[in-house]
């Protein structure tokens, strides 16, 4: 079942095209990643879907409801964790969660339970009555997430929730998202950290200059890359480099110390041919490693630039 469908979405700021005719859909229970460098249009896309800004063209459907026609009903289904901290520093953690929960119509015992539940989930139960201004950056980030969860959403939008925090809090947040997803929550996650997207997302849409340049599972995205498979091996004797170069599909051969680094189009036939070559020349392979292309490689291949450009 599709919980979110975006079709032909366009957003302009004057002459600048922030989002250019993008399409994607998110299935129930998925963690869907929007990956791209700063300025790619990820946040603009999220802001349109969450009703924060108006789109110029296209349609957005949330759980079968048209965003244009049933904006308020759509909002009840969504939880939003903005990129920047959106919490009240002079209120306590509980007061923050309680207030944002009340905006979604929660009240009384139900609201109090939700406050306890979400604060426990992000590991801030013992800080419930502490003012936010006394919190560390990581704790504030966790509270930021708790405020998005207090609304009891069916889809959670997380816009770069791990920017500028310590590794411990980052791990805590990533683990929490996995846990939420295991409980059945659909998550839409924007990031420019490829490792996060790789480890967290079931499917990823790669964005650049307002466009989705590719989308799919990690395997599907890897298959788009033809020359970023690396076979790294170490042998007990030297071998003629030209012999390796002659193997079909091998793009380049390098020696780094006593290690061969062979770039090839894919790992399948080249790996077999390489092993055959070494056996034929009575070489002993001491170490062999195949490196798949990562998202950085995929992005580089698709856009000609790195994610951090």
């Amino acid at each position, binding site marked *: 079942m599709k919980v979110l469908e975006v079709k032909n979405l366009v957003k302009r*700021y004057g002459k600048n095209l*922030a989002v250019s005719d993008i399409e994607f859909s998110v299935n129930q229970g998925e963690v869907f990643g929007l990956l791209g460098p*700063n*300025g*790619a*249009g*990820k*946040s*603009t896309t999220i*802001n349109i879907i*969450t*009703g*924060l*800004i*108006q789109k110029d063209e296209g349609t957005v459907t949330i759980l079968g409801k048209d965003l244009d026609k049933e904006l*308020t*009903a759509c*909002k*009840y289904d*969504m939880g*939003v964790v*903005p*990129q*920047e*901290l*959106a*919490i*009240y*520093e*002079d*209120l306590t953690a509980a*007061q923050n969660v309680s*207030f*944002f929960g*009340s*905006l*979604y*119509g929660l*009240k009384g015992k139900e609201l109090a339970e939700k406050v306890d539940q979400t604060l426990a989930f992000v590991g801030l139960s013992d800080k419930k009555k502490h*003012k936010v201004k006394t919190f560390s950056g990581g704790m504030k980030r966790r509270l930021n997430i708790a*405020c998005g969860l207090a*609304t009891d959403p069916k889809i959670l939008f997380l816009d770069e929730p791990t920017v500028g925090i310590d590794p411990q809090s980052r791990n805590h947040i990533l683990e929490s998202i996995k846990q939420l997803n295991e409980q059945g929550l659909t998550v839409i996650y924007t990031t420019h950290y490829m490792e996060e997207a790789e480890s967290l997302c079931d499917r990823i849409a790669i964005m650049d200059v307002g466009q989705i340049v590719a989308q799919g599972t990690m395997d599907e995205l890897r298959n788009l890359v033809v020359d970023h498979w690396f076979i790294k091996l170490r042998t007990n004797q030297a071998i003629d480099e030209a012999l390796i170069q002659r193997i079909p599909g091998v793009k380049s051969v390098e020696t780094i110390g006593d290690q061969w680094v062979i770039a090839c189009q894919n790992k399948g036939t080249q790996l077999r041919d390489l092993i055959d070559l070494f056996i034929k020349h009575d070489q002993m392979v001491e170490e062999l490693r195949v490196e798949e292309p990562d998202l950085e490689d995929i992005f580089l291949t698709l856009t000609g630039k790195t994610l951090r450009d």
Partner: protein
Amino acid sequence: MRILPLLKKELLHLLQTPQSLFMMILFPIALTWVLGMGLSSISTRVIDLPEMAVPLVETDSSFGDVYRDNAAPVNIDFVPMTQAEALERFERGENENIVFLESGTIRHLTSTSDKSLENLMIRMYSSAFSHQANLFSYVSRHGRPDLMPLEVNDQVELKGIATQAEPSSFDYYGVTMLTLIMMYGTLQAAELVGFEARNRTNIRLKTSPTPMTLIFGSKVIAAILILTLQASIIVAANSLVFGVNYGHLGQLAALLIPYGVFTCSLGIALNQLASKLKLSEGIMVFLINLFLFVGGAYFPVDQLGVIGTLQQYSPVKWINEAIFQSVYQGLSEKIVPLGIRFGLISVVLLVVAGYLFSQRGADYVRID
């Protein structure tokens, strides 16, 4: 009623930062005290009469004792002496006035100008005394006791010509500092609305299913409630501590509440316009101070030419004038028209601000 959590949150903010509320209350009270104390000696209308010792020469008088005794309440001590002695002192400059009581005549010799206080007091007293004496003489000669003045007793109230009370410096600044601080409520209201955008919490507010009109309305109500609370505390403190006369509290409230609604609406509208027009907060502060200055909040500007004529456009002038008229002249006719005027302006300001508030989607987020 989803507005209650919104109001509760605003009040929680206020309680969590009591120092700002404290300053908003303490500042006008302290200023009232400083200005009231500083200017009380200038503005007071009561003059303590100095004791005056005036030589009295009685050459042939049967009313000397009465003349002397009746002068005691006005602090004039007529000292009987001989003519030679009195003239000698007069020539030496030890006395500036001599009174001669002769048969049926009071003569006054003076070396001072007519505006000298001692001279003036002696002339006024002698004139009153002679009128009273003439009346007694007429009544006794013509047998007309009906012409005698009424006895002053409990049933008769004597009043001077100037029956209206006048504000002391504390009364004056108790009112002007109150309306000044309520004008600064403009900034407070602007902050209340602008805070969410600065704090980025407006993203959560706007993505929530709670209508922005409700959020906006709760901001307006919270701003008015907070300002009303501050004004009430200032009125209570000034009345109890400095004895400031605010007149009839019902009338005061009827004047101040529309004024408070107006200042809050102005602040919220300026905040929204400033964001739209990329104006700085400094321009808002300038506008508010212009209203205050032209309205005579710091000192009266009636005599300052063009500024004096401009004051008719200042809401500060409107409210101060209406309060002083209510307190010191018992006039309440300005309450309704002023309430309508403030009300209409507030409605216009809030409609503009509300429209801008609901339209500010793109400004709410970082555009990447």
